[in-house]
């Protein structure tokens, strides 16, 4: 047992699942955020179709993340959810409306404006709610033992509102990069024009957060100042990704914006983790304290090791079965 640190393995798995969710659902939420501003109704069709086959699977990662956290780091599950109670409700309401709008919109005409609004509004709401989670994670939780004792609206501060805005812009940028990859003609030209502005705003937001956070949180300031010698590559890589993204947009490259956008997200995510390490519920509870019993972590780990390859196998197989469709289908250019 000493040789293998199960808690550390789980930290890796959960960290990766959360990031998978952020990237995958981030791009389809981003499409929803950009959606009302699209040049015409036909572009809207195209935009929606570009994420239609994948959003469903993307959300299964959220469910796995929720159940997985309960199983392996219960303190995170049982402190974050009460602390963000109303925010969680708003996120779920957003996801519900958006989920059914996908389906009903294509079959409606009289009620179409309603489903359009449900899709855009639901995406915006869900993205903003997730931004509040990030802000609250940076800001910290008021706990006694393993119980949340703060107020119902502690998550709603100017700082968290700023992180929410930043995440909305970030998701919109991811969505735009995805759209550039998946569309052409009018829609794609519109996205090429829009994306640099989104990037500019996002960079301003990130700089804002990077200044605001250490000024209010001494521990995070100390972390960065004391370890600057090893940590400098993170912001450097972030800057490099930004420059690459900017160039790619200017030169109208199709594939690079998406990957450089993802790279930017990776550096920001790592930066956040570094700031708070080893706390999972800052400023009190570390990931080891938040962990569930070793028997439970082991029991589930066995299942994950056994089943994940199978799941990946049959997921890949269906993607292969439908491989032609993504290009050929009517709304799919």
């Amino acid at each position: 047992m000493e040789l293998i640190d199960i808690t550390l393995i789980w930290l890796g798995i959960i960290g990766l699942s959360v990031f998978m969710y952020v990237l995958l659902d981030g791009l389809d939420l981003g499409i929803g955020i950009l959606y009302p501003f699209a040049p015409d109704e036909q572009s809207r069709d195209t935009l929606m179709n570009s994420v239609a086959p994948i959003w469903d699977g993307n959300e299964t990662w959220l469910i796995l993340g929720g159940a997985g956290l309960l199983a392996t780091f219960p303190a995170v599950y049982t402190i974050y959810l009460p602390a963000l109670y109303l925010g969680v409700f708003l996120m779920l309401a957003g996801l519900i409306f958006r989920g059914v709008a996908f389906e009903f919109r294509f079959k409606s005409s009289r009620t179409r404006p309603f489903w359009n609004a449900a899709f855009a509004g639901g995406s915006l709401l869900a993205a903003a709610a997730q931004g509040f989670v990030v802000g609250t994670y940076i800001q910290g939780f008021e706990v006694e033992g393993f119980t949340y004792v703060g107020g119902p609206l502690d998550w709603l501060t100017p700082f968290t509102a700023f992180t929410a805005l930043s995440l909305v812009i970030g998701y919109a940028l991811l969505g735009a990069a995805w759209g550039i990859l998946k569309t052409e003609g009018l829609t794609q030209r519109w996205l090429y024009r829009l994306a640099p502005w989104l990037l500019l705003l996002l960079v301003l937001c990130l700089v804002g957060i990077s200044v605001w956070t250490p000024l209010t949180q001494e521990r995070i300031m100390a972390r960065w100042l004391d370890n600057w010698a090893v940590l400098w590559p993170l912001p450097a890589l972030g800057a490099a990704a930004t420059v690459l993204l900017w160039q790619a947009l200017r030169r109208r490259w199709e594939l690079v914006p998406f990957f450089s956008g993802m790279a930017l997200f990776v550096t920001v995510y790592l930066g956040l983790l570094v700031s708070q390490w080893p706390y999972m519920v800052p400023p009190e509870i570390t990931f080891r304290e938040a962990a569930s019993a070793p028997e439970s972590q082991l029991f589930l780990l066995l299942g994950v090791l056994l089943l994940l390859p199978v799941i990946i196998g049959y997921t890949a197989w269906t993607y292969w079965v439908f491989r032609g469709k993504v290009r050929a289908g009517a709304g799919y250019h």
Partner: protein
Amino acid sequence: MEILDPLLLSRIQFAFVISFHALFPVFTIGLAAYIAVLEALWYVTESAVYRQLSEFWVKIFAVVFGMGVVSGVVMSFQFGTNWSEFAFATANLLGPILSYEVLTAFFLEAVFLGILLFGRDRVPRGTHLFAACMVAIGTFISSFWILAANSWMHTPDGFEIRDGIVHVTSWLEAIFNPSLWYRFGHMGLASLLTGGFVVAGVSAYFLLRGRGLEMNRKALSMTLWLLLLVAPAQVLMGDLHGLNTFEHQPTKVAAMEGAWETRQGAPLYLFALPDADAETNHYAVGIPNLASLILTHHWDGEVHGLTEVSADQRPPVAPVFWSFRVMVGIGVLMVLAVLWGLWLRLRGRLYESRPFLRTLELMIPLPFVAVLTGWFVTEIGRSPWLVYGEIRLSEGVTPALTGGMALTSLLGYVAVYAIIFTAGIYYVTRIVHAGPGEVGPVDEPSHAKRPFSAADIPFDEDADSSNLSR
């Protein structure tokens, strides 16, 4: 302020969201099995009727499944938002069980559903049948895990509590706890009954209007054979389930029976108004000794009464008592209906008898009512316990939750679900009214792998058909 009690509001909210969610899976589990059978028959006989039926029911399945998914996402956060102390105390045990549900069932369903809905012309016929079977099996696997979690809360086993936290001592005992198989069996049969009575009712609807005669006769005949087995089996299974509960949760059974005093030769009440303050029933009408006979299989067997435990350990009696009667009443009605069907069939009048077809049509909502009242019996009968005999409801609720927050979210969920539910029901009725299409090649919709896009019926009347995916 009574009304702003976070505990009470959380209970109402939980009951509301899970009742709403449970309506969808209970139907999709039964329907998925039916679709798999149709696909198998189509594979073997190549008779177009089966394929036509399957394609019709797959459309409905897709919409109901989609609603099940969105309401299910809400469920996975309820434990943390409103019952954080409970979730924290039981995470070692319930966390892995719920995660296994995602790993073994949800991914399976989500992935093979794509093949079932859109893959008919893309994969070999055998593979398509395989996908239908995987979806059906997936729905049963997810109910297995969720019922394992729920049953553990009723008859906890295989654990010990250290410093207020549940630690698992035996996974086998915890998962296969004493009420699991009874609950799984009863719920499985309930799903088949739900799927069966809906299919039978819809076929009756078409037969009454003279539409798609050959196909709907086939569907009616098939489902009535199935229901002839399942409806009586459910009565037996319910009896066994009740006997098991009698052994492990006698107070719950006392509430179901309206039994206040422990006595021998207890009567079975058909009607009564239980009065918790006076600890008695008003206007009771009962059949002497029958409760003893059912529960102990002795004419004079002893049935425990509610007064054996102090008042703070009793569940609210009236809702349990009445929910139980509604469920059992519907179970009996179902048996009568299938016997009527058998009698008509033997006389060769199954497809002509208008009163019978009309009855089947009217019975469509009944299985859903039975399922909900069944859950009310189970869950309300458990209170004041959250984990029976171990954790009380009041110990499980989130400490930081205020009445205002709980009320806001409760009203919010009611509003959101009201809109979604209306739209969904409206759309399903439209698909049913449009009826099964003709047999022939089906075009691939342009946006694959989304549940609802299998249904190509317009949402509003004036939807312009050029927008449709067909």
